[in-house]
C-alpha cells in the first residue's frame, strides 16, 4: 500500500457546491500516487462532505457518467490522473457546462439525450430477427467512417466544450451529430433521407463552425468535427444533385 511519505502530501480541491446558486468550497485531501480526479471527489465525499453529489458508475471510461469541469476543462474524471491536471497543488472541480445542474457536480443530461434523438440517432432496420445479419464489407469507406465515431460513450464532454451549444440553445451538439453521421454510414439503416433531413434542419450540422473544441476534448479520441463535416458535405452534395438519399 502507499508509503507514509506519500500520504503526507496533500492537494487542495475546490469544489462547486450548490445548484445554480452556490459557491466553491475548498478541501485538503491526501495526495496519492495513482489518484484520479474521481478519487479526489470520492475522498471529499467520504471524509469531508457526506452529502456531496456527483456521478460515476463504471470507473473505467465506458459509461460516460463522471464528466466534470476540471480546472476549466471538461473531462472524464475516472480516467484523468491528478498529476496531469493539478496546478500548483490545487484543482478546481465544477459541474459540466451547458447542462442544467441538479446539485453540486451532478448535471441533468436529459436535453443532451433529447437532442441525440432530434438529430435522428435511432436505427431503423430493413431486416428482422428471423434473418441473418446483413453482409457488410469491413473495408468499405462507409464502414470505416462509422467505426471512427461509433465508440462514443455519450459523456457530454464535447457538448460542454462547444461554444455554439452555449450560444444557440437549438444546436444539437457534436455528440448527437456524430451519432447521426455513423448512422448515415450504416448501410443497414432504412431511412437515410429522413435522417439527413433531421441532421441538417434547425440546429443541425450547419450550426457547427468547426471550432474543434469537441475533438480537442473528446476523451475517447473521436472527432465530431470530422463527422459533422461529413454530414455537411453529404447535405451539400445531395442538394446539388437534387437527390434525397
Amino acid at each position, binding site marked *: 500500500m502507499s508509503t507514509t511519505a506519500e500520504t503526507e502530501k496533500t492537494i487542495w480541491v475546490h469544489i462547486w457546491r450548490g445548484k445554480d446558486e452556490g459557491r466553491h468550497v475548498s478541501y485538503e485531501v491526501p495526495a496519492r500516487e495513482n489518484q484520479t480526479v474521481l478519487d479526489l471527489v470520492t475522498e471529499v465525499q467520504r471524509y469531508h462532505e457526506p452529502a456531496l453529489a456527483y456521478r460515476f458508475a463504471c470507473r473505467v471510461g465506458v459509461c460516460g457518467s463522471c464528466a466534470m469541469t476540471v480546472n476549466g476543462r471538461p473531462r472524464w474524471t475516472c480516467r484523468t490522473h491528478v498529476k496531469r491536471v493539478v496546478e500548483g497543488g490545487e484543482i478546481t472541480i465544477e459541474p459540466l457546462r451547458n447542462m442544467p445542474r441538479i446539485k453540486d457536480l451532478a448535471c441533468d443530461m436529459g436535453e443532451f439525450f433529447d437532442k441525440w434523438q432530434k438529430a435522428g440517432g435511432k436505427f431503423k432496420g430493413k431486416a428482422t430477427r428471423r434473418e441473418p445479419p446483413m453482409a457488410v464489407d469491413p473495408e468499405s469507406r462507409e464502414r470505416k467512417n462509422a467505426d471512427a465515431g461509433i465508440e462514443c460513450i455519450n459523456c457530454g464532454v464535447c457538448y460542454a466544450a462547444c461554444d455554439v451549444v452555449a*450560444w*444557440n440553445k437549438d444546436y444539437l451538439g457534436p455528440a448527437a451529430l456524430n451519432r447521426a453521421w455513423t448512422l448515415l454510414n450504416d448501410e443497414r439503416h432504412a431511412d437515410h433521407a429522413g435522417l439527413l*433531413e433531421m441532421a*441538417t*434542419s*434547425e440546429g443541425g450540422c*450547419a*450550426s457547427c463552425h468547426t471550432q474543434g473544441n469537441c475533438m480537442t476534448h473528446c476523451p475517447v479520441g473521436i472527432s465530431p468535427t470530422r463527422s459533422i463535416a461529413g454530414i*455537411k458535405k453529404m447535405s*451539400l452534395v445531395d442538394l446539388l444533385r437534387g437527390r434525397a438519399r
Partner: protein
Amino acid sequence: MMEARLFALQRLTAMLMGPFVIVHLLVILYAVRGGLSAEEILARTTSSVIWPLFYMLFVVAAAIHGPIGIRNVLREWSPLPLHVGNWIAALFAAVLLVLGLRAVWAISGWAG
C-alpha cells in the same frame, strides 16, 4: 430544408468568391502601387465587359454570403430572436445588393 439551403448557398458562394478575392487582391496590390486614381481604375474596369460581369457576380455572391454569416452571428452573439435576425440579414442582403450593383454600374461605364 431552409438551414440546409442557406448552408449550401453560403458554402457555394464562398467557393465562388475564393478565386474572385484572389484576383481582387492581386488587382488591388497592383493598382495601389504609386497611388490610386479614378482614371486608372475606370480605364481598367471599362476596358472590357469581363470586368463588370466579374464584379457583378462578386457582388451577388457577397450579398448572399455575408448576410447568411451575419444571421449566424446574430443568432449566436445577440439576444435577438431568430426571426428578427432573419429580417436583419435579409435587409442587409438587399442593401448590399443595391449598393453593390449600383457601384458596378458606376464603374462599368455602361451608363454612358
